[in-house]
């Protein structure tokens, strides 16, 4: 029984060391004094996170409460009716009307998202 424990005690630090080697960027990011360069490294990694399309089941436009269409190339959620697009940053959709972009096709600038 003790042999098992000793065996684990020996392999555990090796496993932890290996884990630590693979996660220096994450550690650096959580440190308080973060140099700008390493922070941008983490940002690039995090940017890869995809948008969870199962959210579209109940996610709607906050203004019109109508369903949205996900545009993968520009990483935006589009409301065709109002002609606005909500950005998806790092896989997190930003559903604040003021942050939405008017689609270029809509020349009618009077329907700005902030008017509600």
């Amino acid at each position, binding site marked *: 029984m003790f042999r098992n424990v000793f065996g684990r005690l020996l392999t555990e630090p090796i496993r932890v060391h290996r884990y630590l080697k693979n996660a220096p960027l*994450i550690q650096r990011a*959580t440190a308080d004094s973060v140099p700008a360069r390493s922070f941008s490294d983490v940002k690039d990694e995090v940017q890869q996170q995809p948008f969870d399309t199962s959210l579209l089941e109940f996610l709607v436009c*906050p203004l019109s*409460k109508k369903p949205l269409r996900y545009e993968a190339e520009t990483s935006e959620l589009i409301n065709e009716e109002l002609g606005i697009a909500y950005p998806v*940053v790092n896989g*997190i959709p930003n*559903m604040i009307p003021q942050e939405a972009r008017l689609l270029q096709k809509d020349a009618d600038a009077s329907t700005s998202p902030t008017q509600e």
Partner: protein
Amino acid sequence: MAASMRLLLRRVIRLSHRYNNVTAAGGSARSGCCWGPSTCRCFSDVAGDRSTHFGFETVPETEKAKRVYKVFENVAQKYDTMNDVMSLGIHRLWKDMLLHAMHPQPGARLLDVAGGTGDISFRFLEYVRSQQERQKRRTARSMQTPSSQDISDNYSTEDEDTSQESRAVVCDINKEMLNVGRKRADSMGISAGLSWVVGNAEELPFDDDQFDIYTIAFGIRNVTHIDQALQEALRVLKPGGRFMCLEFSKVTNPVLARIYDAYSFQMIPVLGEVIAGDWKSYQYLVESIRKFPDQEEFKHMIEDAGFYCVKYNNLTSGVVALHSGFKL
């Protein structure tokens, strides 16, 4: 080192003077705010430009949201540490009590508004998972000698479970808080059934009748139009859904109230300065607690929004109140 200490001391004295001048005003403001935000709106509508409170300051409504955003943007990185320090770790007990009162069942859908760093959602998912395991253990125990019918039933129920997975959606107006929360989730290994959305509590980007439970923990006092947030809560909840709100409230015991006030105004901004390097944000925090309506008044506001069976429990003698209502 000595210079910074002297600066700190001077700030403490200056702010405690300000507090002494302001308590007189604060006291009258407290009775004033009992009229309710609706009365304030009548007056300011006539004036043509709406104003509301930001701590003890009066600001135009449009500015409040921006300033609240900046406060949480500044404190996001140190938010969890500060919570532990300021409440001496008691905030964990408050949140655990919220979960116990909630008692969610597997398959429930939670909307955690002003969820920020995700405390409630993490607890929700862990609670539901342990419930699921308990259920499985119970069925396993009762199925020591299964018949062939039982075995085939078991296979079909397993499929149901995966389609009825519990989900938690964290919604917050502040991206920074959500990013901190997501990093925490990744480090804790919680990712299944957890979603993050940037949204405004007054204009939720969710369809009607979608959620079983709506929680807002320590967030509703930062909302500019509380009644709008309550109406949105009613909208997105399923019929039979539950609204739960944890918020700082009025302490019932007068002696404890004096101690609590002294602690809030003398200690918390100092801690904020020392740990998070931000005095003003934590000053706003303690002031906003004083401006928020008390337990009974908030209960009336929830009832006005259309919730039924509205009740509240005082936690820690009223430092925190847990309000609950149902959409029927």
